[in-house]
């Protein structure tokens, strides 16, 4: 009986002490939180999905059939103010007149303002005609190019040159060799669609100068 009483005393105490836990909305960087000041791929994806109808409008005007639609991918950069610059459409077999229409749609997009570097985005447009009719399908991911965090455990001068940084990386971690090894592994692996966009191998780091050799 006393053991039971002790348990009854302890359990509510533990519950009170811990509180409700594990809600992702409690994360500081949860998308949409007032403490999340950086643009996430998921937020960009949501805007792109909401723009599907406008993309479809371009297809309806400039494309006559599925065969003519080709494979189209759009690329653009989101500035810190949330506006779009450098919008372009990569057309593979699609009518040339489709490109400017898509660029106009992209240029009018407005994303949330953010504190990060300008975000480079790539997004494939999937045009489909079937029994349900013609439409642009929402692609599940957008591909962004995050800036690489280079050697964060070393305290390096702000004025370090790209060549010095590249040399340090090659001496200490040889990133090219590791990236090549990863690519070889990927080439050997069976074809599987990537579930999430991965960090670009090169990032937007400045092109490394040739390291000085002895």
């Amino acid at each position, binding site marked *: 009986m006393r053991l039971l009483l002790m348990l009854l005393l302890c359990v509510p105490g533990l519950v009170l002490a811990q509180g409700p836990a594990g809600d992702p909305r409690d994360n500081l960087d949860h998308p949409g939180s007032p403490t999340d000041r950086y643009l996430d791929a998921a937020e960009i994806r949501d805007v792109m999905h909401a723009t599907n109808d406008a993309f479809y409008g371009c297809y309806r005007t400039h494309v006559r059939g599925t065969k003519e639609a080709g494979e189209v991918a759009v690329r653009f950069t989101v500035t810190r103010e949330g506006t779009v610059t450098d919008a372009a459409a990569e057309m593979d077999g699609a009518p040339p007149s489709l490109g400017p229409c898509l660029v106009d749609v992209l240029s009018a997009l407005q994303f949330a303002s953010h504190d990060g570097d300008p975000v480079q985005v790539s997004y494939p447009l999937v045009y489909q005609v079937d029994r349900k009719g013609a439409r642009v399908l929402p692609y599940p991911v957008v591909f962004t190019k995050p800036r690489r965090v*280079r050697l964060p455990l070393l305290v390096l001068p702000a004025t370090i040159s790209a060549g010095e940084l590249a040399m340090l990386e090659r001496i200490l971690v040889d990133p090219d060799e590791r990236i090549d090894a990863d690519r070889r592994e990927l080439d050997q692996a069976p074809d599987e669609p990537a579930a999430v966009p991965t960090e670009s191998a090169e990032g937007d780091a400045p092109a490394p100068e040739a390291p000085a050799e002895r």
Partner: protein
Amino acid sequence: MSLDDTLSPRPRLLRSAAVLAPRSLLPFLVIALGASALLVQVNSAQAGRRSLRYRLPADAIETLSFDVAHTVQTSFDQLPPEAEPYDTDTLQASLATVTTEVSGTIERVVGRVFRDRSLGLVSRVIDVAGSVDRGQGAEPLDASGIEGKSVSMRVLESGELLASAGWQHLAGGGRGGDAVFTVLLQSILRLPFEVPSNGGTLPTSFKQRVPVDPLLNLDQTWDLLYSAAEVPDGCGRRCVAVSYEGTITEAAVDGHPARPMKRDGAAQVSGTILLDSKSGYVRDHTFKLAWTFTTTSLRENGTPRAVITQLQTTKGRVFGGARK
């Protein structure tokens, strides 16, 4: 009264309640009493902290200024055979002693109050100016990579850092975020429960995790001794001053496949915090840190590839607290 009651006397309150309540309700009564006792204990502990606290302005943007100077001495203790083709002597010479002086302002605002009353702060680097001297004269600092960047921090009213995010936008070589990194961390004051009196000291120990990116955390343990400090002239009874000194240890392992490294660090730290006694706002925080970092890059089998030792001395000040 039974013999059992005589041998193990129950609290008076429980016995009185048992008289009033039927036996079937007794377990629930015990639970309720236990929970109340816990709540009273928690509240009284929180009340104990209130003798020293700093407040963060609500519904206002707080501007803090900073000056920080840090000197980093780097030595390559072990280099791999892969370094042979490169001119490492020149590289070592250019990194041997680097002095960075930075000043600027940060703005912070309470963006969110969490369910446990902890505060979600957004601290943004507004402007930064400074110079970097690598032994060949000072060069101006290009702050374009750090101005406008922000970090978010979740803190208790005592200043204890619970979580933070956004460091990856400041971290990394060639960005110049190291000095600002220290300032942002030091802008959050972890205060003791009270100002030690009669020349005494108050030991405090806490752990702090800084997530640099999803694959790298800096895990630090701070062991500090707090003591009362002299309030500067002109501040009088409107100020409270607390000094601290102690040690920090750090362990970090970078799990990113393109940069397998680990770092062990140890530091001596000291500082003085000046608070407005009425408002609880920070007026001035001066600090010194002397770090010794041993960074090891690792091969795929986990053996060391290269070892670099860095001695980093940082002296800085965060002050102001203007609000708009």
